[in-house]
């Protein structure tokens, strides 16, 4: 293999290599890191984040951002708790209702962004506060404990040796990846984010696409919330907020362009896992949560820096590429 080939492989898999490198680093620093139970634990802990991040990544690919996802999850969390504990609704109905609520809140985001023609970042900045209020109004600041064990199975159970949340993540990832890559709807999402005006002139209803993507993001946020609540076994209004930051970090880390039109589910998952491994590893070697914040912030800057650097390198390449 020549150096150019190695470089190409390196560039293509740089994220995966970073993830592996981090794992090796923590394996050396802590004996407890590289155990099956710890690694599964990392995936379990981050399952909800992966699902939410995939939702956000779709919005980002379509040219938007969703800052409200954390608060949306909070609303769904307390609603799920309330349906189960206060209203004693059957589990399948609860799940359907929860997903529906997520989808409706997502639809609201998309609808307002389309109606007012405002960038989704601003819209979701506003709805984020709204959702927070709604969540607390429903819960009355109270926590809902002792959720049913059949419900907790979603977040804590195993099928064979594999944790249920991991199965959910895999299924979601496969479906979304398929939709993004193999369906014309997926192409429309990339078109809407890559160049909205060109997409519109090519006959794509960019507004509809943005709306649908927000609905999907809301539903995935709801699913993430269900996994999160069932893992905790209780629900309250402070669960969820903060996810938006981690999700966007994971997306950017995973190569989802902030301008839209670029990205892959694979990248999002690896991005989330990098964050998860960092948290877990730093915990194991005794670094506190505040240090973790600092490190995560630095990682985000590095990721964006690298992304920008590569794009500039690409521009230079474009100048130099002359088609014969």
């Amino acid at each position, binding site marked *: 293999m020549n150096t150019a080939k190695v470089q190409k492989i390196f560039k293509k898999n740089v994220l995966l290599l970073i993830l592996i490198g981090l794992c090796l680093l923590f394996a050396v620093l802590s004996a407890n890191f590289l155990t099956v139970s710890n690694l599964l634990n990392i995936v379990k802990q981050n399952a909800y984040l992966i699902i939410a991040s995939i939702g956000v990544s779709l919005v980002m690919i379509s040219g938007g951002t969703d800052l409200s996802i954390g608060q949306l999850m909070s609303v769904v969390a307390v609603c799920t708790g309330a349906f189960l504990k206060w209203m004693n609704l059957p589990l399948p109905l609860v799940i359907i209702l929860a997903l529906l609520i997520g989808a409706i809140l997502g639809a609201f985001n998309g609808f307002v962004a389309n109606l007012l023609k405002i960038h989704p970042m601003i819209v979701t900045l506003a709805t984020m506060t709204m959702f927070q209020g709604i969540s607390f109004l429903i819960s009355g600041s109270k926590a809902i404990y002792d959720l049913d064990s059949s419900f907790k199975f979603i977040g804590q159970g195993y099928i064979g040796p594999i944790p249920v949340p991991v199965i959910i993540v895999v299924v979601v990832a496969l479906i979304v990846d398929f939709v993004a890559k193999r369906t014309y709807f997926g192409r429309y999402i990339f078109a809407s984010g890559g160049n909205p005006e060109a997409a519109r002139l090519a006959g794509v209803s960019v507004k509809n696409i943005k709306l649908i993507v927000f609905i999907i993001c809301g539903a995935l946020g709801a699913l993430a919330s269900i996994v999160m609540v069932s893992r905790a076994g209780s629900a309250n209004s402070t669960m969820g907020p903060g996810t938006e930051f981690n999700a966007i970090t994971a997306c950017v880390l995973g190569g989802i362009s902030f301008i839209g039109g670029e990205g892959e589910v694979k990248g999002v998952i690896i991005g989330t896992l990098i964050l998860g491994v960092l948290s877990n590893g730093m915990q194991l070697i005794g670094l506190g949560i505040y240090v973790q914040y600092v490190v995560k912030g630095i990682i985000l800057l590095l990721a964006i820096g690298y992304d920008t650097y590569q794009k500039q390198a690409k521009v230079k390449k474009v100048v130099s590429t002359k*088609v014969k």
Partner: protein
Amino acid sequence: MEDIVLSLKNITKRYPGVVALDDVSIDFSRGEVHALLGENGAGKSTLIKVISGAIENDEGTIQIDNETYHKMNPKISRGHGIEVIYQEYNLINSLTVAENICLGAKSKGLVNYREMERITNDIFMPYHINIDPKALVRDLTPAHQQLVEIAKAISKEAKIIIMDEPTAQLTMAEVEHLYDIIRTLKKKNVTIIFISHRMEELFTITDRVTIMRDGTYVKTVNTSETDRKSLIALMVGRELTETYPKRDCVKEEVVLDVKNIYGFKNENVSFQLHKGEILGFSGLVGAGRTELMRAIFGADKKFGGEVFINGEKVDIKSPKDAISKGIGLIPEDRKWQGCFLNMTIEWNIAISNIKALSKKFIVNDKKVEEQAKHYSKRLNIKTPSILQKVGNLSGGNQQKVVLAKVLAGNSGIIIFDEPTRGIDVGARHEIYTLMSELVEQGKSIIMISSDMEELIGMSDRVIVLCEGKISGELSKEEFTQNQILELASIN
């Protein structure tokens, strides 16, 4: 004459895998208008960037004011009075004209607006530029923005002004004004280096023309001693026998009947398009040609009027409706309205008709690939692979991708908005041939063009717009440049 102001000697610039400039030597005389001519990719832009110091040459020297440099940088270049006016203007949109012109000029601490306006007016006056110094740049037309850009260069007492396709966005009247400015500058011994794809203007304004091809220097000729044909031959390395293909295929049948359209810029516009016809639309920039087509295509709102396709009334509310009714649009600005630059050629060509290439929701990748191969062959898209990103292609090839995308939609009516703007002669000819083929196959074309030659050469009929309304219609026998101009001008 032999008063050399700038001398390039053996300039070579290499990029990985490509030699962008290969041993290029050119002398520029004081006070001359010197055109650089060549197809896209000939190295003109790279050469300009070497002169301005935006990029560094690998070999060769640049001699200016009796000083020799191995490499330029923007500071040295500016210091010697070299100013470049790029196609994308370097103005700050949110500032006023005066602020832009005085930007970077030395001041004594505080900003004196009245003084800035006076300076600006002083610069404008000898060039008959009539722009309010207090106006915000973003409110100006592209032509006026360009004048501000030129005035800025003048204010810096530039000795050499380089203009990269200055007339691409201008109307005839505006071009005339630009010529006047260039003549005035020339009298003041300013050297103008001028890049253009339009032949006619080379003969109007330039003293000498340097032809480049594939990064090499071909020849420098005196404009007065050459003609169009030999210039084209030098450019492409072969002779083009006939620039505009001949055809005779207009039928009686009306395919598009537009009645009393009102839009953002248009008032009460009605016209008919016949089967097999190329209908040209002319007018000044801002006459509402693009807006009219966008209204018909559903890209912008229309406030009244009816559209009939093949005698049937249609209600087009969005581009999606228009495409499903059989209208295709090749937009004015291919980069921002036509292409997805970070996507592959294959992907771009398929986006408009992707539903037809899918079963249920799932895309048939094989059909997508076949379609892309078919069109890249038919349109002669020059690329090593259809998986190449469109952003990596030259302007002409990008335009062909946009064409392929619209053709894939199989529309009967195709609107071309400035189909050859900024495209080299070779690709231009291919696009003309394609348009002729399309009408011969029974399709109908509407073509908006600011290029008078192209409009006259290609159209079967020309409609002229002025201030949003139709000011006249000319048949093939009637139209001449003067006739069209007459109708386009505001009384």
